[in-house]
């Protein structure tokens, strides 16, 4: 059954069961492998994408739920906030193994859109759902602060 998806500014026809997790559609059907599989049960945040501008765990989002919506993955993250975060991430060398970082960045973009100048508590509350087995949390927090300062 074909479903029309709008991902990173482009329309796609996907022939998949509407109950398929969005994560598998992104990775296996569209080849967008920046979005990672971590736990499959919304416990780690590695699969975070944006749906109509809001963060969603793609592992627990059925394909049927995003038909007609605008999906943004790490490959399509753009704009002043995303660019400031990307620069801060590189400047502070945030990733270690890097597996969780796409999800971390997508959550960070959502956080800064909602709270342009977050304090530590805002960052902790907004990023709590994104786990990092390398424990890069202090660098993530510092990079979010740096990006917030850089966004005019």
């Amino acid at each position: 059954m074909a479903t029309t998806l709008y991902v990173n500014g482009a329309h796609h026809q996907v022939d998949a069961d509407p109950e398929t997790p969005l994560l598998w559609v992104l990775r296996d059907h569209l080849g967008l492998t920046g979005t990672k599989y971590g736990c499959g049960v919304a416990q780690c945040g590695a699969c975070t994408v944006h749906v109509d501008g809001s963060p969603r765990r793609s592992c627990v989002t059925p394909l049927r739920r995003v038909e007609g919506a605008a999906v943004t993955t790490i490959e399509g993250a753009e704009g002043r906030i995303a660019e400031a975060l990307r620069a801060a991430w590189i400047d502070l060398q945030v990733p270690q193994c890097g597996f969780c970082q796409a999800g971390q960045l997508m959550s960070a973009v959502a956080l800064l859109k909602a709270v342009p100048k977050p304090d530590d508590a805002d960052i902790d509350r907004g990023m709590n759902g994104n786990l990092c087995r390398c424990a890069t949390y202090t660098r993530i927090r510092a990079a979010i602060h740096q990006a917030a300062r850089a966004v005019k």
Partner: protein
Amino acid sequence: MSVALLIVAVTLAAPSPPEPPPPEELNDPGHFADLADEETRAKALFGEVAKVLLHPRCANCHPATPRPLQLDARRPHIPWVVRGKDGEGAPGLTCDTCHGETNYLQQPGAPHWHLAPAEMAWVGKTPGEVCRQLKDPARNGGRTLEAVHQHLAEDPLVAYGWRAPAHLQPAPGSQERLAALFRAWIEAGAHCPQ
């Protein structure tokens, strides 16, 4: 036994996820009809209503702290999420980041998934305390009892209590029976148990 057969045997013997025990029974209003004294009847009816309100499917999202509970074990929600403004979670980690408008796989979902405000916290309270809270407009969202009844009878998020994923115990009875009990309680004078 070959390795392949051993694998098949172990796979077949693997336990399936435990199913929750059946929910507690919820009596209908007629069960209390023999209680001639209205106040006594009202208190008994609310005790029945409270079986639903204090069940994990309802009370987990009426937490006493900013953090909701989850599962039948009423453990603190993992990931660590907070009520936030309007009960919809913190910016960057709102409830709808993980909870959709319907259940999906084992993920619970219902329209407008959110936490009750702090003044509507039920966890740790007795049926009498919850009853007095529900009658107090300062702690029931400014609702009349009719409006509370409507919320219990019609809100799709309340309906989730009986439509949880299979690994979670549903609330006792049904939404229809809860609404009937609440209606009977109002008609009996809306008295609260101690």
